[in-house]
């Protein structure tokens, strides 16, 4: 039986052999692997790209103080981007399951329609949730638009839910019982995060301070974005750091939301503010990429 970390090693190895760069997690708080620049920005533009990385994904509202055996404030996704999508992408995906020890001749796999949309990122795609013996183990998405732009090359995005896969493979009912490394359970590694972040997000987060931080990051991103159209040398314009501030806004919004600090009337407006930044950033990035490709 593989440990949690062994499962990750094997998946990374599998995709590395198929031409993926193995990246490390993005070093900011993200709600999903899709938001990492390795996905959100790399899917734009005409350049082929293949990458895989684990992304710890923080969703403040999903925290359960470590009480719930199936739910986490921060879960881990293994994110694979194949741009453009190879013709045999599903076969490659199924073989990755064999590679982590799932004998497909003894299990039931179904592809059930599940489309993905993120209004905040101006992004959407179509695809499936992959069901293994009734358990959703992967989100499979063909990206169609990002930042409101049609994509030049349609990438496939595979998002493996690592905790679920590991619990399945190890036959445990609680995520906290997953064996992470020999002799070490998931709960020993992560319980404190789950408890403390739940307490913080639901009870103690400083609403005023977080709002201030939100506004500071928003203003910084907006200030930079406003300069891009007139920048003399667009190739060296710091869009990646700008995007960091957008990501900060997104996470601060999620935290404020879980704290119950965003009123009805504010909510729609705040989402629109983040969306404006994300879409503006994506468009600027696409322009920068196209110029570079043309040069």
């Amino acid at each position, binding site marked *: 039986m593989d440990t949690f970390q062994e499962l990750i090693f094997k998946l990374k190895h599998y995709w590395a052999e198929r031409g993926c760069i193995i990246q490390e997690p993005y070093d900011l708080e993200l709600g999903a692997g899709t938001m990492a620049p390795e996905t959100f920005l790399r899917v734009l533009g005409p350049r082929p790209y293949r990458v895989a990385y684990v992304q710890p994904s923080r969703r403040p509202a999903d925290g359960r103080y470590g009480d719930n055996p199936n739910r986490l404030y921060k879960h881990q996704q293994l994110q694979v981007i194949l741009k453009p999508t190879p013709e045999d992408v599903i076969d490659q995906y199924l073989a990755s399951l064999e590679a982590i020890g799932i004998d497909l001749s003894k299990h039931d796999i179904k592809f059930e329609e599940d489309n993905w949309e993120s209004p905040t990122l101006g992004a959407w795609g179509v695809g499936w949730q992959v069901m293994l013996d009734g358990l959703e183990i992967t989100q499979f998405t063909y990206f169609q638009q990002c930042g409101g732009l049609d994509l*030049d090359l349609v990438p496939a995005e595979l998002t493996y839910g690592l905790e679920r896969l590991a619990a399945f493979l190890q036959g445990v009912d609680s995520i906290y019982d997953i064996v992470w490394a020999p002799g070490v359970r998931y709960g020993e590694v992560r319980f404190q995060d789950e408890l403390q972040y739940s307490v913080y997000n639901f009870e103690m987060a400083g609403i005023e301070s977080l709002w201030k931080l939100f506004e500071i990051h928003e203003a910084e991103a907006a200030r930079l974005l406003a300069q891009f159209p007139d920048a003399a040398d667009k190739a060296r314009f710091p869009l990646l750091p700008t995007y960091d501030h957008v990501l900060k806004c997104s996470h601060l919004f999620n935290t404020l939301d879980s704290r119950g600090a965003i009123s009805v009337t504010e909510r729609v407006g705040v989402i629109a503010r983040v969306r404006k930044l994300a879409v503006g950033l994506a468009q600027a990035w696409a322009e920068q990429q196209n110029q570079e490709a043309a040069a």
Partner: protein
Amino acid sequence: MSVPFLLEIGTEEIPDWMIPGALEQLRTKFTDLMAKLNLAADDVRVDATPRRLVLRASGLPPRQQDAEELLMGPPKAAPAAAVAGFARKLGVAPEELVIETTAKGEYYSFRRKVAGQATSDLLAAALPDLILSIHFPKTMYWAGKNGPRFIRPIRWLVALLGDSVVPFEIAGVASGAVTRGHRRLGQQQVAVTIAGYEQTLRDNYVLLSAGERRRKIEDEIRPLGARPDAALLETLVFITEYPAAISGQFDPAFLSLPEEVLTTVMRFHQKYFSVDGGGQLAARFVAVMNTSADPDGLVRQGNERVLRARFNDARFFWDTDQKRPLRERVADLAHVTFQAKLGSYLEKTERVVNLVTELGGGDAARRAALLAKCDLTTELVKEFTELQGVVGGLYARAQGEPEEVALAIYDHYKPLSMEDSLPRTRDGQLVSLADKLDTLRGCFGIGLVPTGSRDPFALRRAAQGVVRILAEGGWETPLRPLLLGDTALEEFFLDRIRYYFREVRGFRYDEVNAVLAAGWDNLPDALRRIEALAAVRPTPNFEPLAASFKRIQNILRQAEFAGPAEVRTGALEPGPETELHAEFERVRQQAASLPYLQALEAIASLRPKVDLFFDKVLVNAPDPDVRRNRLALLSAIRTEFSTIADFSEIATNQ
């Protein structure tokens, strides 16, 4: 000699619910194409699995028939140069032209032989567009920005006419004679012939016929005790290529959770059938796999583990939610958006409570309206949104609210469809009415009006629910004042009422128009009127009388008669005119006290006197006073007898 045809569009997994519609389009488009190309095709049949849309036909000719085309040139009298020019344009010698005699005279013409084209060539040219023109609710592109759009990527194409491949290409995929078997159980590349196609697929664990898959599922789930569920069955038929049923168990301790919660988890989240155990839910489930067997029980164990986690979640949510009863959650609704411009659910709740009061609701209905939306703040509803209302009802009961309050909350989203039942209690109907009316008023008030197929707030369903509750629940409450004079909303309701009377109750369109023209404020009353009208319709006097009413209406319109006006009995001419007036007075008094059916029968009995009047009396009399009096009489008849239905709307043969 004729040949069979096979087309298989091989794709990645198509959403199950889109498949039947796509197949129907494929059939129609192919049949239309054959007609357009003057090609015969027999036994056109379509089949599908999630990974393939298939069309088969027999009796195609190898070529189109040769035809002759007649091309008309200049008249016989035209100068030689014109004739030569015509011949040159056609590329033939002038002596090959013939003289054709037409109705307009004699003309030079040419009969050109048009050789029939090979069917294979015609199909090869037409199939790519035909395939890509199949409409799906949401399509994607996969082969780069300017590539074709389809529901999912096309990965292979089989196109055979007899033994030969019909050659074409879509997004780099060339047609051939090689199909693919089941993803895990079958071969990935399998050569096929038309004759052996279905058997080859079967050998590779693909049951092509949806009917066969359906029967296989039905035959296997029945002995396992599955409760019938036609919609779930249909879903499973179209997410499997080779279905097989298995049965699993769960801890009977979960049966302490409400059955609604357990069956929702199984049905909507896991696509399992529930199992009946002596009229109650058994601690078992039936799942349908897309594979042939589960020899080691791993699939069963996996599904059992998933269900255990789901049920644990549900129990966790249930227990958490009980810590704050619904009554303490009303204020929380301020944080739940109903609609951006229409504010929060707290504001909606306040409006609905007021509307319930306005509609005559008592304490129980008001209490139910106050608590109805509180379950939106619970963990259980956040997780299982389809249980909104139901969860509120269950919680209300568990938290000691009166039973009538719990029931009203439980039912207040009903009816969810034309087939769904109404809320079971008067209180439930009131809360449902008020909730839906509030949504409709609010959305129309800010211009959120459904257009075409776009109806994101399900306003049609809401209005249809209001119509059904009023009509079938016997609510005589006047509807129009509840619409606040919003003419767009009135029109919208009128449409829904028409739809209900026609499509659901099966009344004829003219009867519906006639009855609604006489008023639609009180729906149970309108229902009684239309039932009476439909009953009196076949009696011999009725349609002729309706025709007379149309005539009356035309006369009044042409005379621009403003009416109503007093009929001066002294000015009536003896004979048919006086008789009609007397009959009118008699019927009027009689009808006023009768139920609708007898009233209509009485009105129909006017017919001989009306006929006689039109036979013998000239309405447009030269004397303006006489004319005005006659118009006044007709106008009085029309006005008096149009309160049940406007008979001039009835379609007649006269």
